[in-house]
């Protein structure tokens, strides 16, 4: 089984430029800049069907293809790497940045060339101190070796990459909020259209891609579409970093082919449940994905199979809900997070999420009523897609709607017994 993104990583040891060059880390850059036209690269990535690895799964090449090109296109364009990893349960981009920073930088160089952007930013989560140190060092190495700066590899292409460390707030991972934040403003999402590819950072065409997405680019350029497609088990293309956290024997992160059954990841890689714990449900890819109940964990981990059972792949870093954790308290924890992190711009999200959180807290504390379940169900529609300014509140409603469905009995026990059965 091939693991292109992580095969050269020895955890805890960062690949230096020298290490990276030894394993051909910049071969893709050389090929792209010297042998390929920008449009060729956009087409290649489009045909590869590389889906965005940040959680939404939007086709990467399609996103790039919206950027105006040619002599009439704006001269200034930007590429932004979204490294604001903050989806609860997600710990994959940190791993790629801390261990193989040049893979990301190489991907950024090729992407910037493909959309003809001469400035790029890495929007990095404040808390990722080690990633910041590693990236700053790797950028300095790349500049010194002529992979960044003016006239890269004598091709006439120029690129500067800047690191912006954020100041906290989950919403900054939403690409238009990220752009506002990078402009020094409050991180509030923007109305779309115009889409960032047309008018983004500082009003210029901008592409925002996730760390894991960008880490793929040099591999695809170098080894081609057929190779990329063959990596996955279900034809979607590529591997995916997948993680498991919670009460399992070996929590961790692995690069696995898209399409691998969820059960296999949990049992074979994460070692199965810890002694004394039973699996109840899985959050497959971060806080904003629907629960997968225990009887459906044979689902394939990919972009099509999970929606077919009412969930999403998201970031593919699973959180295991065990039988000794109260599902109502767990949902309360999730909704508290979303309530706190609402940017406050639109009313349904600003007012609705704290309302949901308070009801869940009341139920958890044994003060809930049966009617509260109707109010919660109402919110899953009222705060759902199309009713709010961005995807924050709809994301918050995903675990709630599936939680209400799968844990109905647990909700009723809290209400009828007037206390949390998980607390003494």
């Amino acid at each position: 089984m091939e693991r292109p993104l992580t095969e050269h990583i020895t955890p805890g040891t960062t690949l230096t430029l020298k290490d990276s060059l030894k394993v051909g880390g910049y071969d893709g850059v050389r090929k792209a800049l010297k042998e390929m036209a920008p449009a060729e690269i956009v087409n290649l990535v489009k045909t590869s069907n590389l889906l965005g690895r940040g959680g939404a799964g939007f086709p990467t090449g399609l996103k790039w293809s919206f950027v105006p090109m040619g002599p009439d296109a704006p001269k200034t364009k930007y590429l932004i790497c979204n490294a604001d990893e903050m989806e609860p349960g997600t710990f994959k981009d940190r791993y790629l940045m801390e261990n193989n920073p040049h893979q990301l930088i190489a991907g950024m160089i090729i992407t910037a060339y493909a959309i003809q952007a001469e400035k790029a930013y890495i929007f990095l989560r404040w808390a990722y101190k080690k990633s910041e140190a590693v990236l700053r060092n790797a950028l300095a190495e790349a500049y010194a070796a002529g992979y960044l700066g003016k006239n890269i590899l004598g091709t006439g292409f120029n690129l500067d990459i800047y690191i912006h460390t954020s100041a906290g707030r989950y919403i900054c991972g939403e690409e238009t909020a990220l752009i506002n934040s990078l402009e020094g403003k409050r991180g509030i999402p923007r109305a779309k259209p115009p889409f960032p590819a047309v008018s983004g950072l500082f009003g210029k065409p901008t592409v925002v891609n996730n760390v894991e997405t960008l880490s793929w680019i040099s591999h695809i350029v170098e080894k081609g579409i057929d190779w990329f497609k063959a990596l996955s088990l279900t034809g979607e293309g590529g591997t995916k970093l997948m993680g498991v956290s919670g009460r399992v024997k070996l929590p961790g992160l692995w690069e696995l082919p898209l399409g691998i059954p969820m059960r296999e990841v949990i049992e074979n890689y994460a070692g199965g449940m810890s002694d004394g714990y039973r699996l109840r449900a899985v959050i497959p890819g971060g806080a904003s994905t629907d629960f997968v109940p225990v009887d459906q964990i044979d689902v394939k981990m990919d972009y099509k199979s999970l929606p077919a059972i009412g969930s999403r792949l998201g970031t593919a870093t699973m959180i295991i809900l065990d039988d000794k954790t109260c599902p109502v308290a767990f949902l309360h924890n999730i909704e508290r997070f979303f309530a706190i992190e609402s940017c406050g711009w639109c009313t349904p999200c600003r007012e609705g999420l704290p309302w949901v959180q308070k009801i869940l807290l009341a139920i958890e504390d044994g003060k809930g009523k049966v009617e509260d379940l109707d109010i919660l169900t109402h919110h899953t529609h009222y705060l759902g897609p199309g009713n709010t300014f961005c995807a924050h509140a709809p994301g918050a409603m995903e675990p709630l709607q599936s939680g209400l469905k799968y844990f109905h009995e647990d909700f009723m026990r809290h209400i009828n017994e007037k206390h949390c059965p998980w607390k003494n």
Partner: protein
Amino acid sequence: MTDKLKNETMLTDHEKEEILEESKAYPYLKAVCVDALKIVQHHRGWVSDDSIIDIAGFLQMSVHEVDSVATFYSRIYRQPVGRNMILICDSMSCMIMGYEKLYDYISEKLGIRFGGTTTDGRFTLLPISCLGDCHKAPSMMINNELFSLLTKELIDELLIKYE
């Protein structure tokens, strides 16, 4: 406040240099606002009303605009904080792995709840959402360092290292 606005900016030369250096990444000065707040906080521990006015003057922004940016971000502190910042992850994986008991332990040990600062100014305790360390939960940060697989014993060992 109006007197202050008329005065020369009180940012130190060092802070101004750092802000200008950071601003080279952007096409105009105002865009450096978040970085400027972080730079001032780095030197002073927090961002006071006076600092907001000073930054606004330096970046030629309105005071309210700078304050609106400052209050948006959770890692910009608009109140004085202790010499060391403890950030306990309170998200899902850390909840499953028992952060609440560790929070109670730290809280009792230091005599403060979330949002509090010890009377000697040594520690401030705040919650933080997912630190991206879920496979090694429960986790927390003290200042710029991440600590994983926390236990009461490990917390005892850690806290004595910070003065």
